[in-house]
């Protein structure tokens, strides 16, 4: 384990920046946001960024390919290019876990080469949470905010940042900062972990459990009468899906630029009324079906296809951002609650 004094963070960022494009969470008018580090950007004290870091691997929009159309002829132009090495500093435990969930979608056969390219070149420097919020429930999904995963795992104490490499990519990054960091024992980090664990246990949502959900529970919950009440106020907007670190649905669309066609991919939301609309009909007719799809996917369908792994990491973004304050916590309590009586 290595450490560096907090007042030398700039030196650390500068050293990382030499070999990687570095992104850190910084404060903006509308909350924290990952920004490219140029030298002036300060590390945010906020618990987490408003948008999740999934953009780094699965951006909101990306060009997939170009087409040149001339008369009856079409030329397909592969616009993919090798991505440069980059490092994302300050990723929280929940968001680190979200990459695992996205990996299982995008890296399963057939591999999504756009995602894989960025994933291979990205180094995750995680940061343990010191002040989890009232909206946090990562422990519900077995995530330990005190000990995140990641290529390099960091703990921030009062005066220093402790860093430990956990992967080959992490080792490589750490070797680039070996000059400015010093060896440290784990005492301070252990004390920090203990503090965080105590705090986690006191969170208002500490008791939330996902045990009622998971692999093979489709028939148990699909026709639950509670969906009607849960979804009645849903506006059908995409806020929850767009701030969610694990929502990965996308749309593929063409844009005619006037001198060619760009086929791009962009985030889509199962909450949108046209998501499944076909010329032949609409399998998810009302907001109830769309709403149910989102939560069933996170709590039942995804675990069914992925060895019981839930596709929610308890980051609390939807809890904070939903315009009508309906969220997965309320859904779980309502559905899980009624089952237990």
């Amino acid at each position, binding site marked *: 384990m290595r450490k560096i004094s907090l007042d030398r963070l700039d030196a650390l960022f500068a050293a990382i920046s030499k070999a990687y494009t570095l992104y850190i969470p910084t404060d903006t008018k509308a909350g924290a946001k990952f920004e490219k580090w140029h030298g002036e950007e300060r590390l945010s004290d906020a618990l987490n960024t408003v948008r999740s870091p999934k953009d780094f691997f699965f951006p909101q929009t990306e060009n997939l390919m170009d087409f040149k159309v001339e008369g009856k002829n079409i030329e397909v132009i592969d616009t993919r290019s090798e991505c440069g090495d980059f490092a994302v500093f300050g990723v929280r435990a929940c968001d680190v876990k979200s990459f695992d969930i996205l990996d299982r979608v995008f890296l399963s056969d057939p591999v999504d080469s756009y995602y894989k390219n960025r994933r291979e070149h990205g180094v995750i420097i995680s940061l343990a949470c010191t002040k989890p919020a009232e909206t946090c429930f990562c422990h519900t999904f077995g995530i330990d905010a005190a000990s995140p995963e990641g290529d390099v795992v960091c703990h921030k104490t009062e005066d220093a940042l402790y860093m430990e490499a956990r992967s080959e990519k992490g080792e490589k990054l750490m070797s680039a900062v070996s000059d400015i960091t010093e060896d440290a024992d784990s005492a301070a980090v252990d004390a920090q972990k203990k503090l965080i664990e105590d705090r986690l246990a006191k969170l208002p949502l500490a008791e939330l459990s996902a045990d009622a959900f998971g692999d093979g529970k489709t028939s148990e919950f699909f026709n639950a009468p509670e969906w009607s009440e849960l979804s009645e106020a849903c506006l059908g907007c995409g806020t929850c899906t767009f701030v969610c670190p694990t929502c990965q649905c996308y749309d593929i669309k063409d*844009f005619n*630029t*006037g*001198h060619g066609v*760009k086929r791009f991919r962009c985030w889509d939301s199962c909450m949108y009324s046209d998501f499944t609309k076909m010329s032949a009909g609409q399998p998810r007719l009302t907001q109830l079906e769309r709403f149910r799809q989102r939560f069933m996917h996170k709590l039942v369908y995804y675990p069914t296809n992925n060895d019981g792994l839930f596709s929610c990491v308890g980051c609390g973004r939807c809890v904070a951002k939903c315009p009508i304050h309906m969220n997965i916590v309320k859904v779980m309590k309502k559905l899980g609650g009624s089952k237990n009586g």
Partner: protein
Amino acid sequence: MQVNEYKPLIVAFCCNWCSYAGADLAGNNRLNYPADVKIIRVPCSCRVNPMFILRAFQRGADGVIICGCHPGDCHYTSGNYYTRRRMALLFSMLDYLGIERERTRVEWVSAAEGAKFAATMKDFAEKVASLGENKRLEDLRCKK
């Protein structure tokens, strides 16, 4: 004369009954106006949806002008009055967003005003040329 002198692309939405005929008259009378004015004929100036204007900018226009019958002379009685209100509000909004106000204009041109049409286009093109390329409402994907 410079070889690659900047020439703005102007989109002119012209009402079928007055301004389009005015443009025709300008042509018949061999009156010069900039060749980079692309005329789109519309049944009435009030057919011009604000989105048409934005899309013209998206697709590379540097200036957008809407020409209709003089107020009171609308072929459909009142279409151009609505145009006037909508465009007053839209242009004011574009200005509010920091889009150069000289890039948009409404001009009333009758079927008899071929000379006015040519002069208006010349003047508008010059004003837009002095602003340079449209950067504030551009869509980078549409750039060559």
